[in-house]
């Protein structure tokens, strides 16, 4: 089966059972949301998928391939990209370099490459630069491309991180609170982009952790509602968010 699948995932940290036998499937061509109270284990799920944590039990499958226990960079090379909850950027670099660093192909990694294939490197670099400029233009940061990334505001840094993720062309994108800290208009734009990505390319899988219910209702096709490390509800967005228990436990009305 294609897509990303987690099966019976469990994780105990410092004697606390953070994730308890979570099974979920994230289908390509769909936006799936993980919602739930703070501390429900949503980010931990992302960490388990990406290899930052190894599960005590259970497994992660990607296109039927068991990717449990792979190193984080290996997971990324399989095409699973991730946006961190707290914004992470390369502060000492310019905005453009931030994106270029991400979207240069792995092939140019050898330390001898620039001396052995200088022309090819130039071409690759030019291509990466063009692609980076395209995505910066897209999120509205093109005018600031030569600024030090550390001088951007929080929201702009978030947009930069999103541009970096999009430029890399990951097949699966795990987005941890992509809309937090963004202005309504930027949120709208990012949402529209994500929706466009899945509708244009049915191969892409997007998983979002988000507390902004407006974003979730408008964007997500499926919702997993998590509570205390377990999946409490799963279903179509309106069904899950309409359920009385979810309203009482999470939404507060």
């Amino acid at each position, binding site marked *: 089966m294609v897509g990303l699948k987690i099966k019976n995932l469990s994780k105990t940290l410092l004697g606390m059972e953070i994730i308890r036998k979570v099974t979920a499937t994230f289908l390509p061509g769909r936006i799936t949301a993980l919602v739930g109270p703070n501390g429900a284990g949503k980010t931990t799920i992302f960490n388990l998928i990406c290899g930052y944590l190894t599960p005590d039990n259970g497994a992660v499958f990607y296109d039927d391939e068991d990717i449990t226990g792979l190193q984080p960079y290996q997971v990324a090379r399989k095409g699973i990209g991730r946006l961190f909850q707290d914004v992470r950027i390369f502060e000492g670099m310019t905005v453009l370099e931030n994106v270029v660093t991400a979207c240069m192909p792995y092939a140019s*990694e050898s330390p001898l490459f620039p*001396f052995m294939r200088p022309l090819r490197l130039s071409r690759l670099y030019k291509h990466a630069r063009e692609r980076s400029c395209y995505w910066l233009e897209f999120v509205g940061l093109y005018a600031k491309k030569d600024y030090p990334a550390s001088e951007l505001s929080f929201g702009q840094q978030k947009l930069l991180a999103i541009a970096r993720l999009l430029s890399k062309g990951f097949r699966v994108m795990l987005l941890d609170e992509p809309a937090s800290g963004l202005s309504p208009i930027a949120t709208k734009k990012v949402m529209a982009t994500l929706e466009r990505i899945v509708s244009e390319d049915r191969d892409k899988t997007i998983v979002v952790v988000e507390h902004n219910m407006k974003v979730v209702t408008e964007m997500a096709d499926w919702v997993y509602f998590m509570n205390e490390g377990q999946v409490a509800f799963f279903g179509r967005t309106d069904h899950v968010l309409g359920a009385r228990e979810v309203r009482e436990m999470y939404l507060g009305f």
Partner: protein
Amino acid sequence: MTLLLQLLVNAVCNAAIYALLAIGFGLIYRSLRFFNIGFGAVYVIASYVVIALSETFGIPLFASIPLGIFAGILSSILIDRLVFSPLEGYGAPTGVLLVASLGVYIAIVNLIALIFGNEIKIITKGMEPSFTIGPIIVTRIQIAQILIGWTGAILFWLSIRKNTLVKAIWAMGIAPELVIALGLPYKRMRAIVFSLSALFAAAASIITTLDVGIDPHVGMGALLTGAVAVIVGGVNFYWGWVSGASLIALLQAIGVWLFSAKWNELITFGILIITLIFRPDGIFSPKRRAEER
């Protein structure tokens, strides 16, 4: 005046060596964010391997020098794999790594002193062939210093501009977990950082040893020169390292002219202290310039 001119030429040679040291030290300091005193040990190992091979086994210099560089690289990677990497795996803070690297330095230097003795060892005996240009005398080894030092600096600069790997190494110092999330292999990058650093250390070490000889304790001085050059020039800015190295060499030459060569270390650390007081980001740091605009 002739003396000053001669000293300035010497400064250009020293600057080349200091630049190599600064790049070697700065690579680890910038990308792994810890003050690696073990760098001094790698510096010493490279030269002593050359000495051991050429003196004890009679291997000619053109063969023993590459082997010395190779030994430096190998020891650098080994030190990382055996000491630093495991410590970092346990989540040790950079202070712990600093103390561990000091331990590595002391152990290796004393081991070398035990085997080879504490006195100065010289590889090339007798006078170096020299060339006279007007009032200035340049030795063959000084020309080699300038050539190797500045080619090393420029080649590194060329590779830093477009190469993903070097960009990623640069990025690694800011957010290592982010580099991993983008699919770049941390361990391999780490090994490359340590080997590149050792390559520069070994080049600087061997060429200095060919000139003036070596004793087991010079590693610390080399390390500190490199470290001061990096901090003075600005940690985040590659040309700052090279400029910092040049500045130290230049001021040392002026110091020799005005006072005496005994004051060299005082000058080095004087520059460091003055920089830290007035421009803690480094004299040549580009970030400051952007803010001043």
